């Protein structure tokens, strides 16, 4: 409809083209801005994620019993064992008389830290490996692809088990287990995008004119391949959380008194039929957080791949 209404002189065509080119910029920020404008899913996801992050930052202020939140057993524990949700303890208390709400609020921090560490490290490794493979080709390419395939095949949970036996429990175990497997996905995505970029004329030209490999990699390949990979990473934030909490739930990750959702759920699981609140609330937080990130990721992906975005009507 827009072109019918538009009555500007015919040069407007050219201007429009430029505008359009500007709009379809593939930078990550530009994609995000566009997603915000277009998608209500993105907005919902964004609001959820921001809220969660705020809760994480403000945890000590929000938690009514910050010491409980950190894992300390309160003085009057015996009077507070497994209280059901009430005004004093809106999520109830656990078997040690700790306030579940405070624990869950502090759990936001563990969740975000785990997600951040896993995704950022995997992203760095994955980008590096993927780009190297695409640029240098030959044996290196095969080798890296082999490694990618290899680590893609190992589920994080079994690596977590081995690491747990070697390193003991702790943040390092769960984060390392996830990084070892997770980077390979980014490696693959980067590789696929970079390979097509490496084939492009301007990269060949730069190569021929003797620009150093690293410079080309940085200037052309990484810059152009990273937005789709970043989008992939955003989509993954929720999955990282789901897998990390599963690992913690099985006791392969963080130690038992940590304010971590999987750990809290594990504590509550054997009291499920008499005190369900211990396990139920942390689970809701996992679900909501993962959902928030996933909504953001999906809308971003739609931006990168316009095919997903077309309007639709049944036509036969």
């Amino acid at each position: 409809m827009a072109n019918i209404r538009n009555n500007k002189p015919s040069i407007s065509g050219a201007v429009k083209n430029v505008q359009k080119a500007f709009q379809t910029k593939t930078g990550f920020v530009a994609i995000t801005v566009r997603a915000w404008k277009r998608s209500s899913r993105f907005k919902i996801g964004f609001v959820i994620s921001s809220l969660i992050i705020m809760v994480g930052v403000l945890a000590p202020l929000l938690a009514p019993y910050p010491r409980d939140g950190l894992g300390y057993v309160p003085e009057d524990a015996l009077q507070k064992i497994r209280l059901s949700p009430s005004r004093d303890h809106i999520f109830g208390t656990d078997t040690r008389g700790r306030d579940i709400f405070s624990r869950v609020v502090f759990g936001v921090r563990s969740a975000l830290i785990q997600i951040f560490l896993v995704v950022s490290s995997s992203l760095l490794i994955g980008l590096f490996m993927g780009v190297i493979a695409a640029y240098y080709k030959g044996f290196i390419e095969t080798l890296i692809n082999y490694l990618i395939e290899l680590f893609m095949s190992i589920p994080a949970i079994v690596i977590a088990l081995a690491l747990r036996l070697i390193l003991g429990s702790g943040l390092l175990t769960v984060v390392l287990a996830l990084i070892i497997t997770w980077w390979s996905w980014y490696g693959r995505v980067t590789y696929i995008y970079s390979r097509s970029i490496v084939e492009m004329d301007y990269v060949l030209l730069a190569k021929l004119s003797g620009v150093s490999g690293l410079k080309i990699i940085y200037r052309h390949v990484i810059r152009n391949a990273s937005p789709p990979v970043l989008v992939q990473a955003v989509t993954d934030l929720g999955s990282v959380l789901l897998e990390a909490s599963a690992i913690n739930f099985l006791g392969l990750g963080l130690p038992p008194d940590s304010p971590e959702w999987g750990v809290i759920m594990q504590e509550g699981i054997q009291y499920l039929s008499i005190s369900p609140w211990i396990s139920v609330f942390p689970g809701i937080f996992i679900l909501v957080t993962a959902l928030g990130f996933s909504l953001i990721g999906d809308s971003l992906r739609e931006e990168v791949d316009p095919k997903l975005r077309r309007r639709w009507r049944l036509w036969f």
Partner: protein
Amino acid sequence: MSRNLLIVGIIVALIAIGSVALFYLQRPETTRKVVVYAYNDRITGIDPSVEDDTGLVVLGSVYEPLLYYDPRSDEFKPALAINWTRNEDGTEWVFKLREGVVFHDGTPFNATAVKISIERARDIYRSTGRGLGYIWDMVSTIEILDSYTVKFVLDYPARLDLIAAASYAAYIFSPSVIERTGASDILDGKIEEWFNQGNSAGTGPYFIEYYRPDKEVRLKKFEEWWGWKIVNNPNAPDYVIIKILTEPQSQYNGLTSGEVDIVSSVPRDYVGQLLSRGYKIYNITTYHNYILFFNTKRYPTNLKEFRLAVAHAIDLDELVQLCMKGFALKGSGMVPHNFPGHVDNLTYRYDLSIAREYLNRSGVETPITIEFLYQVDYEEKRILAETLKSRLHQLGIEVVLNPQPWTALKDIAKGIWEDPENTPHLIIADWWPTIPSPYDYLYTMFHSESKEWNYAGYENPYFEELVDEAWKLEGVDYQAALEKYYQAQKILFDEAAAINLWDEVKPFIYNPKIEIPREAMNPLHMYVIFFQYVRVG
């Protein structure tokens, strides 16, 4: 399209409803008497001479020792031996064996079986250190006087009647296994392998029909058992299924869904609810106690005052409620309640001011950080660790938690003898006895020779002398021996090498359609239910 889908859907739904209905209508009537017993751990092995852990729950019904001893009433009950005599100084024991007993494989029981069984336990321990055969350490020779009489000649006096009633390493198996497995001698690994494949060669009232150590063990009634006439229990189960359900929640589910009859460890919080639903309980005060060791070789827990400060900062009343939900007796001394050698009034008083005073006296600057090693898969130990961490925080003692699986815990804790500086300051372990003697507790956990289990790194020559003397005295003057054991425990109490937190009270919950009489359990045989006494239906 959608109509077809609907039809398929309806058919599927009908089949589902139909089959569920069928399922509930067609549940077959119980014809055989079956008891399903949910046990909370995997079976680690069922070699009667070597096994020193959870295999007991099977061995207890499949094999028999020469004697049983019930510490609750201080009574001996003859099993494979019908009477026994000893010489004056307790170095020679003669056991008269029961006649007409057959093993599960049909071979007759006789003195040779006794000799071979006990020698195997002892010699495996002597040659490889495996198993609990050390209890026969004093036995120098076993002489077969006739088919049904054996004579034990000891190197030093001992209460061999108590030892013969041990819950481990005292089981008699059929010598036919040597031939059957093609073993070269009794120490041949083939025999153990054969046992662990799920074979039994005992004389007990049940034999193993199906053995999956990680899932279930099925025991079948041994009709030729000598004791059926004596027990006179026509309602004894024909089959016993020992079902491995490690998760307390699963045990609860099994019990409430009716698929399990007896559970060994539902979450303690559930007991009240289950009782109100009509399930019955068999509370047994066990000899299973939880002991908190101090690393006596590393600062600051090498200071007696510091240890006492911690000891007085622990509110055992609270912990028994919080960790054990009341299913425990506050510990006193190292030997549990009702066990020979138990003493009252060796419990630290909870008083933070006393604790602070000791802390000042120790000269330890606060805040100070200490490390606590505990077993990760025990809920009560986790609660203990977290509570202790919070309480000691008030004294300025920061506790770093180090949860480990049991095997790793053992490994780290033993390190106290080589590398005390890298061994945690506090270590919690739990213990249940092999032989009904205080020596079992005091020697194994506090003697410097017992580097395997002495997690305190405790070395006190005077204490060791007392314990060793008491052990040798047992066979000669039992009362004097007990007095020495008391003194030894007093030393441990004053020095606070370790704290006996509590003795567990084990609630076995069971379906009211079965009956578990008192004699079906013996605290010495942890987790064993003597099913020949259990009545079904």
